[in-house]
């Protein structure tokens, strides 16, 4: 493989990491509170607001059921409003964030719901406010699950990022399609897939390692 092509792969890897990294950060920033709220706002729960819960749940489901490629083109005007442009890696972060937020929210909701309800009652019994319960009980206790959820979200985002070539987002997926498929360069396709596999392995191993480290539920040693 020529140095030129290798440079392309390096550049595309950088673009992928940039888009996925920022989208994962923003997706977590929006998805974590949303997920916590979804997990604590049904009838009788900490932030009981059953109606808001149902409306947000419906919005989350609607976003999650829209195919990503359709979401990318459908929100082009919004993307332009936020990013100033509708093409390029930075612009691609907008649809990636919008797609990952409800995904992360649902994963966070599931992880938070795993926390023993008795702990909420316990914290309430010694006068913890709802916010203190979230910050000192729910999130720390759900941390292993949250880290695994975030890992899953990053891996999914790597997959989504292959589609943002449609708006000139660049990245590994785009490189694989343009060179590997449209220019009939199977070795390029293979190289891209190998890099993606390595990235996913890396992310997953790191996530597993961190989740294991913070999990005190198992007996260690």
């Amino acid at each position, binding site marked *: 493989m020529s140095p030129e092509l290798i440079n392309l792969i390096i550049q595309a890897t950088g673009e992928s990491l940039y888009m996925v990294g920022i989208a994962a950060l923003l997706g977590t920033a929006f998805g974590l509170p949303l997920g916590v709220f979804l997990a604590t706002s049904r009838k009788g729960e900490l932030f009981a607001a059953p109606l808001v819960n149902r409306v947000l749940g419906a919005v989350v489901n609607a976003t999650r059921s829209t195919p990503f490629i359709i979401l990318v083109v459908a929100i082009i005007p919004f993307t332009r409003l936020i990013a100033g442009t509708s093409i390029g890696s930075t612009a691609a972060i907008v649809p990636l964030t919008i797609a990952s937020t409800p995904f992360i929210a649902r994963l966070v909701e599931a992880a938070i719901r795993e926390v*023993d309800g*008795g*702990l909420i*009652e*316990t*914290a*309430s*019994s*010694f*006068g*913890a*406010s709802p916010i*203190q319960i979230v910050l*000192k*009980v729910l999130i*720390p*206790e759900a*941390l292993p699950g949250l880290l695994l959820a975030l890992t899953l979200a990053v891996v999914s985002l790597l997959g989504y990022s292959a589609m943002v070539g449609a708006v000139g987002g660049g990245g590994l997926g785009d490189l694989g399609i343009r060179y590997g498929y449209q220019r009939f360069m199977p070795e390029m396709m293979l190289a891209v897939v190998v890099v993606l596999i390595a990235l996913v392995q890396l992310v997953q191993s790191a996530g597993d390692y961190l989740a294991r480290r*913070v999990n*005190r*539920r*198992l*007996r*260690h040693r």
Partner: protein
Amino acid sequence: MNAHQSLAIGQPIETLEAISPAATEPDAMVRFEAISKTYPAYRGKPGVNALQNIDFAIPRGSITGVIGRSGAGKSSLVRLINGLEKPTTGRVIVDNRDISALAGRELRLAQRSIGMIFQHFNLLSSRTAADNIALPLEIAGWSKADIRARVTELLALVGIADKHDRYPSELSGGQKQRVGIARALATRPSVLLSDEATSALDPQTTRAILDLLANINRELGVTIVLITHEMSVVRQLAKEVVVLDAGHVVESGHVADIFTHPKHPITQSFLAEVIGDSLPVSLASRIVPEPSAGGQAVVRVQVRGAGAGDTVVARLARELGLDVSLLSARIDEIGGQHVGSLTLGIPGGEDAVTRTLAWLSQYQLSAERLGYVA
């Protein structure tokens, strides 16, 4: 509250006079006033009247047992004390404050003076023993240095100073409950609520935890409310008892009085758990309704009160000149009072039985004839 009448039972008059007005008119730490609690119908399930007409007080500094079968309303009752639930009607006064009227920040401040321990310990798995104990202090806004000092003190108090950095997954059930107790006491509460705190522990560990609670009550003066379905817990620890059944208080008062003279069937069934109400199978199967020549009448004597049963058999044999045989006996001590029954075999025909029953009633010992054995 029938506490002052019941104080007199089994006590010489002199000691009654020595009791200060504060003791005869006990200062209540918790007072339930005309409480009822109804859970509304929800999703097709009918509404539940969990508690009705609850009116009693828990004396300051006491260890009070609240005993009842599952579904009797114990959990609702304890959750009314720390404001986790609101009564449908009535008021709950804790330490002279109407906790049922508080909400939001005021309620949370009040809750800091009410500690609670749980059947399943409810420790945070992500925190060490020390950090679990620190949690209520963090919530109350203590400084890091104050928290550190207080946690060390509490770990020593509950006897697990060496478990400072252990996670709950590395602790035994008894150790976890010790952490739970230390956590509940962290903010120096005036009341400690124990919700079936020993129900998940083995008998030996249960005893150790109950001893610890007794020490805490004695040394810190914390009022302890024990919610339990186990008679053995009440017997070992409580001085006062409230018997709950189907949302009603059926009896309340001193443990010794309630269990030496149980009135309600539920109380009697709890007592039977401790003293055993049934005869040994081998004896029960031999009892027949008609006397036989050379056989014995079977008479059961209820033993209630201090020293009541001690010398019955010996005196009965000596004074009536009967070769009384002891067929079965079970006597236990509850609140310093003897509670149990003696099953006696009386030889010598109808006349001997009549004389025996008359002799027993003379000493206010209740007895019944169960039948005859050959």
